[in-house]
């Protein structure tokens, strides 16, 4: 018995069995416009928005992504291209003078099939001082630091975080949003995931169509 046990212990099964039944987490190496289909003007954007002190700027025209570092007073350091369309901080969003409406559609194809831009109130950004969290380190003392910033309440509905329970409950709306940019072009956006394969929250996957032309 004992030698048998010792022999068993020296087998590779020492550290466990059936590793093969699991998937390997994909490494988060590729960020930005990870998929672009020129023919349909659509694609997928994957960004790392895990940091509380980072805005990620997206420009559909040039397929470029820029980031800035946010200070407590709201000032940002970092270069951003002029004509950016959308920016993301954690799950928060802002636009570059644009406006957003939530549609009833739950897929981009459905939206495109509808053949027209939705009617209704397109919501512009609002100035906030209690939205953009930049420091959670004193949360345990009940102190959360916010940076003053623009914020688009309509597009930010794409992910609801219910913090009334611990841990918070995250619910994606699953809806398609239409962003009218400052220069009058339309982008259709859908948040399809807010985590990476290792379940770390703040990795945002956004499917888009830009420009939307009916």
């Amino acid at each position, binding site marked *: *018995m004992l030698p048998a046990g010792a022999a*068993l212990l020296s087998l590779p099964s020492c550290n466990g*069995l059936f590793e093969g039944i*699991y998937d390997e987490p994909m490494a988060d190496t590729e960020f930005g416009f990870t998929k672009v289909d020129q023919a349909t003007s659509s694609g997928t954007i994957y960004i790392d928005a895990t940091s509380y002190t980072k805005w990620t700027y997206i420009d559909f025209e040039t397929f470029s992504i820029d980031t800035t570092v946010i200070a407590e007073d709201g000032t940002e350091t970092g270069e951003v291209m002029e004509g950016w369309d959308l920016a993301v901080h954690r799950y928060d969003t802002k636009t570059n003078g644009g406006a957003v409406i939530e549609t009833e559609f739950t897929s981009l194809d459905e939206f495109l099939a509808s053949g027209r831009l939705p009617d209704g109130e397109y919501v512009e950004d609002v100035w906030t001082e209690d939205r953009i969290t930049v420091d959670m380190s004193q949360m345990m*003392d009940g102190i959360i630091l916010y940076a003053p910033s623009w914020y688009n309440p309509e597009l930010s509905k794409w992910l609801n975080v219910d913090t009334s329970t611990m841990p918070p409950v995250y619910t994606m709306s699953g809806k398609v949003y239409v962003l009218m940019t400052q220069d009058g072009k339309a982008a259709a956006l859908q948040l399809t995931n807010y985590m990476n394969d290792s379940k770390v929250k703040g990795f945002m996957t956004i499917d888009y169509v830009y420009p939307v032309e009916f």
Partner: protein
Amino acid sequence: MKRIIFLLVVLSLAAQSLFASASVTVTGAVRDSRGEPLSGTVVTVVGNDRLYAVAGDDGRYTISVPDGAAMLRFHLLGYLTQDISLEKVKDNLLNVVLEEDLMNLETVVVTGTRTPRLLKESPILTRVITDLDIQRVDALNIGDLLESELPGIEFSYAMDQQVTLNMQGFGGNSVLFLVDGERIAGETLDNIDYNRLNLDNVQRVEIVKGAASSLYGSNAVGGVINLISAGATEPWSVNVNARYGAHNEQRYGGSVGFQAGKLNSMTNAQYTSIDSYSMPSEGDYSTFYGGYNWSVKERLQYEPLDGLKFTARAGYFFRERDLQSDTRDRYRDFSGGLRGEWDINDRNRLELSYGFDQYDKSDYLLFNETDVRDYSNVQHVVRGVYTYSLGKEGQHTMILGGDYMRDYLMSYQFEGNGYYVQHTADVFGQIEAKLSERWHLIGGLRYDFFSQKRLSHFSPKLSLMYSLKNWSFRGSYSGGFRAPTLKEMYMSFDMASIFMIYGNPDLEPESSENLSVSAEYNWKYLSASVSGFYNFVDNRITTVWNEELGGMMYTNMSPLQVRGVDVSVSTRLPFGLGARLAYTFTDEAIRAGEPLLSQTRPHSATARIEYGKSWKNYGFNVALSGRVLSAVTTEVYTSATNYEDTETQTYPAYTIWKLTVSQDIWRGIQLNVIVDNLFNYRPDYYYSSTPSTVGTTAAVSLSMNIEEFFNKK
């Protein structure tokens, strides 16, 4: 059992022919109180190991008794053993009526001393929950069962709706759970996965309160709970069962067992599921997360020679929890083992075993259908135990044993999802001496070694029992400890970008010193016990805000004390009425300013009253069981980073009851109707310690023992 009986018959025949010259023949019938024959009753001559007879199907026996013998002993499982003087034999005839063992006094327990002892004679006060109790409360899982049978046990929710235990001030990592004496790998927020401990194929649950590290090592700080599996006892058996209840709760299970020559096997499978549901009022949690579990286990025993037995076991467990719309938590366990037990002779016994247990956690992400593992705990255990009976009549017992364990832990809570390995070794010895008919003494010592920080710990035990007729008085001093786990030593975990939790490699083991005294009274229709206990607990490990690190860090706490009283009375009368009342008072004294403050309810009680009757083809039992928990008012810290400002928090008292109506319809078909939360307790606010009930609910369950269809009774 049948095989043993057969052997005994052969032996008795051999013995009869051997002693035929100088003996008298006694014959008669053994029956129960209703006059039914009790086949299989073993008849022995007291003071003579070699003479046996076994009652046949008609309850009749014949035994040759040598000259000078004074008593005959009649023994049958489930009945009270009777010693009858040969003076009562008239014309070589002795008819006997055996009474049912209603109070389970002849149940054999093993947890307290690591050797089989009759419950009533066990030198360590042990509480047993039998398979009948399990059926009667129709418990779904171990938590449900323990809460309904024992006061002072509370399962509540920790963060993330993970289940956490409080047993009279001791948490999940201070109460050692065993399955057939084997430890269980894996933990979440300091608690093992209680879902693994389904009650399928559990013959009994033994509970020993108080420190027991002298026999079981780390984690046996506040008590040991040991689930004992049943083996096959029939030539073949097939059971299928199902249960349906509120929130679309479903359970399907089955077992197949057989005995063939030297081989016996038992295979069990079970599937359970329940939907997620919302709580009707607000609270610390708003949704109960549903999910499903399934498990398979196999136990194969082979007895090549009389007294030599090999047991092989294997199990698989799977649980999936609906945490969020896009994520499922998955838990898997693979276990296996091999054990050899050899009764070398009357005095020497040797046991060697190897056990394997792997507990994995993974996240199944629905959007890309990936199942990524982020936690794996793999334990290999090799054990040897040698038991030697000392003294003229083998009345004393000495046990020597040792274990080696390799503990591998990979976790998302380690930096870069890394892993650590620790080797643990221990040796232990115990002497159980029967000083006289009345005095019983146990002394034990164990030494444990943990490789990671070269920690070692000695755990002593000394206990004394005095028996007088139906009374037993026990007193004991025992040591308990819990070594810091790999998680507690090496954690480096970013808690939702809010703060870090750091491990601490310099942790000291938690330790406890336990003093207990008890008085127990056992009679064939009534058992009662009172016990008082005092625990001095030092270096309890918890997370504490560390200013320097700006995060939480595992730290040893200052000493605390837990003391209390347990009272229990139970009765079962021959006409089918039974009742049980148990009460516990617990006082947990923790100094203000410590990071953890007591949340233990001071008073709690469980009660059960039942009535049942059975006829040839029909039987019923109605059981009302409930528990009452007092309110607890405690201080809670208003900040997690300092331990000065507190506010008062009261967790309200509540009581919850369950009615179970069981019917044995026909030959092994049992139908249960259960009304849970009978008096419609609806919490105003769901604290994490509030049960996730939404009011009165009902369930039905059906179980069929197919082999009984073919019984010719």
